[in-house]
């Protein structure tokens, strides 16, 4: 029990530190939110001042961080500068597609990964070597390059898969059909490198693909 509490406290500390780093990083980044908001329009200083006060940009950094943090704990994650929308709503609207994509990719990895593992394990010799070589190839194919090739070949060339959309109008089949290629591109490096020694790497990859 005490262990659990300590771990939870540690987790809280990690999250707090991470959020400070990101918040502070954004503060350090060149360019200012109000300039980003007006997107290339030359506007009067009064308008810029109005934006600064609307977003409380003139408050000192700790105050802004505290405002944000207390907002998060009361369920108010703030508003997107880009869409003028509640960040919670924005994130919620993207969750279903993200989860579906991750699920399809995970299924691909498990099914094909186990299949290849069994193949390599039971056949040995040449099959094993090919799987090992393939796994190295898998790490080597950048996800963005795989996506480019998959789309060129299977969507545009052969027309087997759709070129855009997440299939959120249709049923499950439509959804899977829309997500197959992106999931394949995501899982290719993991799927081919799903042997034990790659565990830590896989987690790094999975980590990366969430953003």
């Amino acid at each position, binding site marked *: 029990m005490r262990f659990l509490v300590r771990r939870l406290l540690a987790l809280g500390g990690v999250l707090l530190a991470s959020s400070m780093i990101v918040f502070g990083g954004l503060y350090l980044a060149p360019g200012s939110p109000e300039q980003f908001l007006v997107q290339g329009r030359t506007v009067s200083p009064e308008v810029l001042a109005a934006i600064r006060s609307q977003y409380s940009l003139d408050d000192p950094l700790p105050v802004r961080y505290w405002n944000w943090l207390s907002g998060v704990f009361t369920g108010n994650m703030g508003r997107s500068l880009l869409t003028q929308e509640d960040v919670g709503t924005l994130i919620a609207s993207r969750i279903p597609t993200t989860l579906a994509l991750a699920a399809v990719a995970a299924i691909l990895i498990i099914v094909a990964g186990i299949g290849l593992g069994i193949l390599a394990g039971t056949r040995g010799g040449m099959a094993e070597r090919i799987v090992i070589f393939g796994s190295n190839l898998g*790490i080597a194919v950048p996800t963005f390059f795989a996506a480019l090739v998959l789309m060129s070949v299977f969507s545009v060339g052969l027309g087997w898969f759709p070129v855009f959309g997440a299939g959120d109008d249709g049923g499950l089949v439509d959804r899977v059909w829309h997500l197959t290629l992106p999931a394949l591109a995501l899982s290719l490096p993991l799927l081919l490198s799903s042997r034990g020694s790659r565990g830590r790497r896989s987690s790094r990859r999975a980590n990366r693909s969430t953003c």
Partner: protein
Amino acid sequence: MAASETAVLATAPGTPAPGRLASVRHRLGWIGMVCTGIVAVVVLAALVGQFLVPYDPTVGSVVQRHLGSSAEHLLGTDQAGRDIFSRLIAGARTSLVGPLIVVVATAVAGSMLALTAVWFGGRMDAFLGRVLDVLFAFPSLLLAILGVAIFGPGLVTASIALAVAYIPYSARVIRSVALRERNLPYVKAAELQGINGFTITLRHILPNVWTQILTGSTINFGYAIVDLAALSFLGLGIQPPAADWGLMISNGQESLQQGFPEQSLYAGLCIVATVAAMAYLGERLGGRAAAGRSKQ
């Protein structure tokens, strides 16, 4: 890196005696031989490629865009009329220098963190563990974007951001190996003799985790190539007109759509071949090193 360089050195100088070659082939297998060849070619291109390229890889004119392959332009020209072959050769350098920065920075910082944590143990270990957790919490791409937003895009920024993302992984692994050494009787004995911790760590623990650091670095090198290429692809790494494989894949996307896939394709294949070769070699060498150690 160091490990694969050893492999290169083993085959590169001149034409070795048939007997030696056969033994190398036996050790690496034919796939290993091919991989060694690929790495050798890439390293050579990175070192002396700039003297061999037929054209300035950064100069071209749109008037000569999308030329097919010919005797003049071996692999044709890109959308800005630059010679693709020259750009591939020149791109080998940036494609290796960036990862080198990543790997060295990761190895140095990772082992320092790990050895500090292991030697002092207790609170220090717990504290550094939390620091690593914070780093773990960041996807490498987010770190890179943050870094680039603050310091501006470029090879060095991207490499350092990536190194920061790699450090926790590397530190964790090194820590676990170092911890085993730390608990061995001879270290305890040295400690009792009053030898200071810094010396013991440097003299006794570091040499024993050295293999782990090298193997990790070799594997990291391959990942760093891919990850840096991804950053260049997103426009966060190397900037045009400089030549870089990731950048070339990105630049070639529109040409690909227009029916000129050469640029993206060749650059992509260069990355795939290089990384696959390094990963394979890294694994062979790392695997044998590990096997060798367990036999002791």
